[in-house]
């Protein structure tokens, strides 16, 4: 069996494995590795094998990856244009089919094709040096460690900021007597807050203690209808010792009552209709308080 046939079988097996893993819905590092190979290398490599290009490893990598990426772009355009979509199965089926068909064609034609002389391409090959391999692997591990440290540093920088979010979940319900606000503690520490609702001169205070990254929606059942004009919510960060501190004052203010919408009607506006419209308007204003 020639190296070309062996390579084609490898391509065939890897393409099939990728298709099987995706269709079965399995994840993990195996799928990640095989999936990356399927997208970035296998279709182009299969094409090179079919052409009978006997290349050095780096040249095969260069042309194989470039051809694969180009094939992915063209396949993607086809998937989008035909409205098949970009699901995992669509991708893996298309790319896997191309890879397997090209590899199978290579296997079929390689028996008949004459041997291709190795052309002098001027590209170097790697000599098998054991110590070098160890150093490369060690270098790769240190580089990965560097990225991990940088990632940890970036995430720690984000978490270092003691951030709290306040938002209006519902400032006025159907009966205008219930108000809901959302609170989230986006920091790495457990924090206590005073949530103060101020509807029309009143003041209702709730104390909340939130774990890191905890979200809570707090409801206030006021018992009486309130207008939308003066619902103010404040969130204050409580320092240790129970002293209220306004280091993080968050305010959500409701808007005033919107202008009532008067629906248009097709009849000509007679005097009677005008009176009726005015009556409706007054009732709407009264109802909204």
């Amino acid at each position, binding site marked *: 069996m020639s190296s070309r046939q062996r390579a084609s079988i490898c391509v065939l097996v890897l393409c099939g494995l990728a298709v099987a893993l995706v269709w079965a819905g399995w994840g993990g590092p195996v799928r990640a590795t095989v999936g990356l190979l399927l997208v970035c290398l296998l279709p182009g490599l299969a094409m090179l094998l079919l052409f009978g290009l006997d290349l050095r490893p780096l040249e095969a990598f260069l042309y194989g*990856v470039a051809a694969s990426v180009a094939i992915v772009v063209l396949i993607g355009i086809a998937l989008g244009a035909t409205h098949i979509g970009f699901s995992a199965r669509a991708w893996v089926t298309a790319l896997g089919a191309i890879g397997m068909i090209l590899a199978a064609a290579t296997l079929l034609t390689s028996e008949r094709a004459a041997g291709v002389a190795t052309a002098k391409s001027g590209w170097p090959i790697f000599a098998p040096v054991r110590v070098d391999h160890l150093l490369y692997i060690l270098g790769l591990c240190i580089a990965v*460690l560097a990225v991990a440290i940088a990632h940890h540093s970036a995430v720690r920088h984000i978490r270092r900021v003691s951030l709290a979010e306040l938002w209006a979940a519902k400032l006025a319900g159907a009966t205008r007597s219930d108000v809901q606000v959302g609170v989230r503690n986006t920091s790495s520490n457990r924090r206590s807050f005073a949530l103060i609702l101020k509807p029309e001169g009143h003041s209702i205070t709730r104390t909340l203690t939130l774990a890191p990254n905890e979200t809570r929606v707090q409801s206030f059942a006021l018992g009486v209808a309130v207008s939308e004009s003066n619902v103010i919510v404040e969130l204050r960060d409580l320092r240790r010792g129970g002293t209220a501190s306004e280091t993080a004052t968050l305010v959500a203010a409701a808007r005033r009552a919107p202008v009532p919408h008067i629906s248009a009607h097709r009849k000509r506006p007679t005097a009677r209709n005008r009176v009726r419209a005015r009556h409706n308007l007054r009732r709407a204003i009264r109802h909204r308080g």
Partner: protein
Amino acid sequence: MILSGQEVTPTTPAESVSRRRWTPSYSACYALFTAVALLALALVDDAARIGRPWAGTVFWIDLLAIFLPAAWRICSGACAPEERVRILLILGLGLYVVKILHSPSQFTFHDELVTWRTVHDLGSTNGLFTTNPIVKAFPLYPGIDLATLAVNRVSGLHLFASGLILIGVMRALTILALYQLFRLATDSARVAGIAVLVYIANPNFVFFDAQFSYESFALPLAIVTLAVLARALAESDRRRRHALTAVALITAIAVAPSHHVTSYALTLSLLVWLSALALRRRKDFTLRCAPVALVAAASAFAVIAWLIAVGRSTSEYLSPVLGGASSSTLHLLLGSGSGKAPFQSVGGPTNSTLERIIGFGSVAILLTLLAVGLWRLRRHPPTNALTGMLVLAALLYPLTLALRLTQAGVETSNRASEFVFLGLGVVIGTVLFSALLTKRIHRSAAPLIVAGVLGLLFTGGIVIGQAPSARLPGPSLVEADSRSVEPYDLAAAAWARKHLPPHSRLVADRANALLMAAYGLQNPQVGKVVGLHVASVITSPTFGSSQRQILSQDAIRFIVVDRRLSKSRPVVGYYVDKGEPRAFSYSAPLPFASVTKFAGQFGLSRIYDNGEVSIYEFASPASTVRGPTQARGAK
């Protein structure tokens, strides 16, 4: 001939095999050294995030520690061909990791955020040609988006990891293709190595060309096309030549839907190459011309077909950029326009005196070496048409420098460098190789001197191509791209994605608009409405009838207000939109009233607040919205 350098043959394999098994090679030691330097850079980035003043200096030392050993070894005569390729690959990938260390947990650069939004839209709609509220052209060239989706869906990796890996793979392709291209153009592996180092010194290589963006994806494909085609022309076997031409054909066609300017540059390069081949009138002209003609025709056809498919949107995007750059430069040269001082920054850190000297010095050295190289070409013309085509590209370099003298031309000049440096690599690489062979310099000192010159070019390139505020992470700045991606902004964008209707129209400052579009999946609005600047909603000290009219006419429902806008001037020169009235001329930060004017206004309800960033909901008087937005999924 000047472009055919002399090779230094390595030691014979027979006597060195057993020694190489147990003695580490220079490239392996360099790989380990580079990894340790990257580890140190990760610690420097950590220090920079908390504002340590020494981080900037150590950053430069670290970068030079990665670059100079590679440059010295490649310039030295003891470097074997295989070692040269390995060192270049390690250098190229090491510099890519430099960019990853800058933003290791998410994309933060402008183009990356725009691309992120496009990828997300493509994946959710399962169709091509979505709309991007920030840059309309991005979805029209979905090459990188499709490839990223493919990696993400097939491998199951996170989208961020998929994008990083994809661009890393493209970076490896770039290095290998450049080496191949330069080696075939100069017929010398050593000159090719030096030429690749010159290309790495271009202002965009370390950061801009390493970002998750459509140009970073398309450019390697274009370079590979040229390299494969050059390889095909050098091939004597007909079958192999056809096979390599087929590879070049596929990659050339894939460039067209990946990036507009790159596809135009590739087509133009192929046509110039074809013309150069025709002018040489060789006996085997037809044989040599056929692959280039075929790929040029395919590239041109793909470009035209894609332009027809995407409509006029590309010209609507490119015309203001290119037209503005050329017209402002022309006006400056005729004396009727105003220029831009180099290294000028409205706000934020500026280049130190030494950095400015290095920046100017690198340009002066490039121009000098270019002049020397062109002078030598008079006596020794290029040996092949490919070299001639690349030399023509090098001639554009002085023109791109002129564009830097105007505000409108800076971006165009920056973007042009990755094309122009393909030619500069060949010309300057040849000159530097000649310097290595000259007898006027001591043999052992020559590689050190040439490596030093390359190091200067490399440092100067970063000084010119990357603003001081963007080289390292650090404390928050106002409108400073990656330095404005802060926890408050990210939290607001994440909240908007969860609680606001998707694709809602809103107005925000530049940094928050990017995050709202990318991570919040909203549609920020800019430009003019009924003759009024949308930016005035944010920048005006009062909220009056004009602002209400803008919000009503443009159907804007939300306003994102960042209180920090009043603390500093914008680093990029504007707060919201490049066309806002006082863009690039802010003498003071926005008044505090600009960020507090919304409180208590009729029709405005503050529905979100996190201490720095607030979101207001605007109820137009004509709308039937009666209540604030209902929270979805709040727990």
